């Protein structure tokens, strides 16, 4: 039986001997490039049947064989049990383990010999019995030493490639290890994140929200937050929003597709690739290799599929069919990249990432980009974007809801408006600010040069001065400044983007983006007048109040990473300064984002 099948398996179409040899050689070159080098011994040729000794060059005939001869329809079972990649992986190991004991994987009956088992094998009727067994994590470990089937069963099945898709073995092993670690952690938060990420419409990500500030800094807590963070990132809705953000997309596509001289033949790394859109742009721009790193398992799988569907995916065996295949998707955190793939340090020409969070720094993804820069980027290599700037401006009463609450159906509900302001003085508001509500000129709070900045410079303190935007000659009226609004810009400067530099701006003066702006409200509004407008009244002692409006507001702004992983703390210290130098300092306000 085995003998016949061997022949059947090896010869795709039973033609001449020459063809056979050619086929075999070709297959050898394609299939075993990656992993024969690692083991001294030559592993048994091809893929081993689950139930008998038959050998196959690819999994399609193997599974056909199992279905017809051993009544094991792999694809059907996979579907019936709704198994994902790892579920199928475990299934194969499980079946092999049962066969090794001469036990029917489906009904559990044991037989004296393998042949008896083979005679017995029947179609599975009751999947319920099998289900719990195949979910056991011990089957994540390959049952056979060298089981090439495990690395090829997830074939495309499109019929486009003749050669099977072979997954990078080490990469897979690493992914499995990570997966195993994650599930062993068995934390409620991960489950919550998983369950809520499936129902994202309006649902609070309980995992993130519930991590209290009392859980500080332990590796476990970092992991938990990371898991919720990465779990949530796999929710398709945010990707929809980001991909629909035209300002964002235009800036990046211009920076990449408009600078082909930078990308042509380059080795590119995309940190946090999501759906992989930037990697695909890079491939389109002529990159020779794109390493797309994504820590969310779900999104990494999606990015891989998208790259394949668009013929950009790099198959590890260097498939001849796919010359344009330059994109490799790696599932893992970029800080742990060396655990996932083999890559020479400082071998990347272009580091690409869309890392910006609310208020620029929320999410702390910048730290990951910098760590990638320090480890993987060539000296003199390009970073896109290469600059980032935080701006601030003061806003007026119209941007608050105070006016609304003053008269509600004829009633004075201003007490409620006050309550809102008090709350806003502790909590940042992410919302779109209308430029007509700004009362001061914009001012740069901090600039980051991504090429040279040190990792700890993501925490900073800056001093700025705000002056009213109305000119001294026109409006003499006092303006009340109710707080500051922060926004950012990132630059794809001509330092690297020589052909077409670009700027991504989230300013209230330009088209809105999904980042909107970040609104920080003062506990008390500060009265302001344009410079030189009024310095005659020296009787009042205060500054920044109606009687003696301030000429400028001096602000000390600090943004630092909070103890809670991925959160930031913003502190504001405001001082109102009159034209004659009188100054009133306001108590510091701390905005919590945890």
């Amino acid at each position, binding site marked *: 039986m085995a003998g016949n099948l061997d022949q059947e398996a090896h010869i795709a179409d039973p033609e001449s001997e020459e063809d056979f040899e050619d086929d075999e050689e070709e297959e050898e070159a394609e299939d075993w490039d990656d992993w024969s080098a690692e083991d001294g011994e030559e592993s048994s040729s091809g893929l081993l049947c689950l139930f008998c000794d038959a050998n196959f060059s690819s999994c399609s005939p193997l599974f056909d064989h199992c279905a017809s001869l051993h009544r094991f329809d792999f694809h059907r079972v996979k579907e019936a049990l709704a198994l994902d990649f790892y579920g199928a992986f475990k299934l194969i190991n499980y079946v092999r383990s049962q066969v090794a004991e001469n036990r029917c994987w489906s009904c559990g009956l044991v037989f004296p010999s393998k042949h008896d088992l083979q005679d017995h094998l029947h179609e599975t009727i009751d999947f319920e019995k099998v289900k719990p067994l195949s979910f056991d994590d011990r089957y994540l470990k390959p049952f056979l030493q060298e089981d090439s089937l495990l690395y090829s069963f997830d074939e495309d099945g499109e019929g486009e490639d003749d050669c099977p898709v072979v997954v990078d073995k080490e990469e897979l092993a690493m992914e499995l290890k990570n997966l195993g670690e994650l599930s062993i952690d068995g934390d409620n938060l991960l489950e919550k994140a998983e369950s809520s990420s499936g129902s*994202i419409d309006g*649902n*609070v990500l309980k995992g993130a929200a519930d991590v209290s500030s009392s859980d500080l800094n332990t590796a476990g807590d970092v992991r938990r937050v990371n898991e919720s963070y990465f779990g949530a990132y796999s929710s398709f*809705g945010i990707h929809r929003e980001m991909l629909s953000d035209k300002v964002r997309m235009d800036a990046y596509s211009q920076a990449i597709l408009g600078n082909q001289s930078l990308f042509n033949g380059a080795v590119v790394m995309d940190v946090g690739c999501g759906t992989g859109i930037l990697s695909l742009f890079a491939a389109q721009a002529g990159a020779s290799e794109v390493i797309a790193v994504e820590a969310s398992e779900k999104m990494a799988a999606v990015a891989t599929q998208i790259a394949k569907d668009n013929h950009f995916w790099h198959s590890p065996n260097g498939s001849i069919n796919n010359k344009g295949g330059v994109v490799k998707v790696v599932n893992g955190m970029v800080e742990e990249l060396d655990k996932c793939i083999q890559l020479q340090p400082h071998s990347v020409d272009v580091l690409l990432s869309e890392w910006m969070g*609310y208020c620029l720094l929320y999410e702390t993804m910048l730290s990951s980009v910098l760590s990638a820069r320090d480890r993987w980027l060539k000296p003199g290599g390009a970073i896109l974007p290469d600059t980032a700037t935080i701006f601030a401006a003061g806003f007026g009463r119209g941007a608050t809801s105070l006016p609304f609450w003053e008269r509600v159906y004829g009633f004075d509900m201003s007490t*409620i408006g006050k309550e809102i302001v008090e709350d806003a003085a502790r909590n940042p*508001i992410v919302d779109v600010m209308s430029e007509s509500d700004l009362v001061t000129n914009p001012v740069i709070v901090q600039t980051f040069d991504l090429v040279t900045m040190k990792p700890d410079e993501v925490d900073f303190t800056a001093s700025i001065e705000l002056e009213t935007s109305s000119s001294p000659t026109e409006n003499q009226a006092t303006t009340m400044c109710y707080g500051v609004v922060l926004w950012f810009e990132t630059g794809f400067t001509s330092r690297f983007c020589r052909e077409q530099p670009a700027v991504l701006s989230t300013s209230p003066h330009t088209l809105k983006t999904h980042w909107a702006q970040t609104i920080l409200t003062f506990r008390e509004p500060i009265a302001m007048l344009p410079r030189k407008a009024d310095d005659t009244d020296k009787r009042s002692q205060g500054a920044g109040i109606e009687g003696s409006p301030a000429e400028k507001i001096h602000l000390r702004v600090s943004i630092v990473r909070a103890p809670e992983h991925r959160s930031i703390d913003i502190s504001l210290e405001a001082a109102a300064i009159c034209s004659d130098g009188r100054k009133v300092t306001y108590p510091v306000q701390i905005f919590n984002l945890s």
Partner: protein
Amino acid sequence: MYPATGFSNGHRHQPAGTFMDKRLGSGRRERARSRATRAGPRDSRDPDQRCDQKPPPCTDFDVAYFNSYAHVGIHEEMIKDRVRTDTYRAAIMQHQSYIAGKVVVDVGCGTGILSIFCAQAGAKRVYAVDASDIAVQANEVVKANNLSDTVIVLHGRVEDVEINEEVDVIISEWMGYMLLYESMLGSVICARDRWLKPGGLILPSNATLYMAPVTHPDRYSDSIDFWRNVYGIDMSAMLPLAKQCAFEEPSVETIAGENVLTWPHAVKHVDCYRVTLHELESVSTRYRFKSMMRAPLHGFAFWFDVEFNGPAISPASNHVTATFAESSNDQPMDYSQRKKRPNPNEALVLSTAPEDPPTHWQQTLIYFYEPIPVEQDQLIEGSVTLSQSKENPRFMNIHLEYTSGGRSFVKESVMR
């Protein structure tokens, strides 16, 4: 009662806990809907027990629920819903003769706006009850408008606070998405059982939940087709995820009359004078629709209306009776006649129907993962059951069975 931008806190703001979520998934403003965090099981009390016999304990979950209402922005949203607020004010004015000189209880008063309207209408005394911290602000508002003699704000649950007199009128804006989701109706029942005089007035007096089959090709293509071409890239690999996320849970959004395939069916009728807690635990109905047009069937829409009926006012024509709710929908006439402008002697109706001006409740849509092509006059039938989730009684399980064109389906979802 739950605004479209759920967890607003102050001026279009989200409480700290959800700040991260803006980037990470939920509570996005551009979304068709967001929701406030509602957590907390209903108390584990005996459903048949009347509220006045044994006040159930206030759990941590209840506290969290009440806390979400302290976030003031929700109230801004609700007050700004003119259809809602104007209709309530008009209803109060219409019943002025039953309110002037009488004692009123406003269940879940929020900022106190309805209590103030009642005071304006001449109420002798208004007890404005709210368990959320917003009651503190309501008290300030009452003071600022010199109504402290008339309006007494009670900060606490209706189950716990004490009112030492009988009450003539109960007013409340208790309705949630899909009418019953997270509904405060239980508290209204409690207030009724504890304090309402026999023959007393309840506003609104009754409520009806409707459902209808809908077609919404724009929405479907918007969620799904988007992925086929993204800047020239084929991202259809996202489709399974996209469908799952877009259609797994009920979606609160606004649809138009044109989206509805035929006259709606009344899922549940609530008579606020007689409804019991027990009957709210699980609501079930069978339906049978005949599509009026040829279109892809994308799912079902749910909406409600409430009526402000009083003893002296004749019910709106075709006032729904208890029998209507249970029978299958072969009474299209009732619904269409309802749409005539009510004359002054008829009860006011606050409607959230797709053909009526939009409200912050919008409509609640349950989409199928795959649309079903439907011909004109084709039957769509099945059942729907809404029940309190065991996981959390403030959550609602929706079990939907539907059959059309010879194929049957079941869809389970949870409104969290």
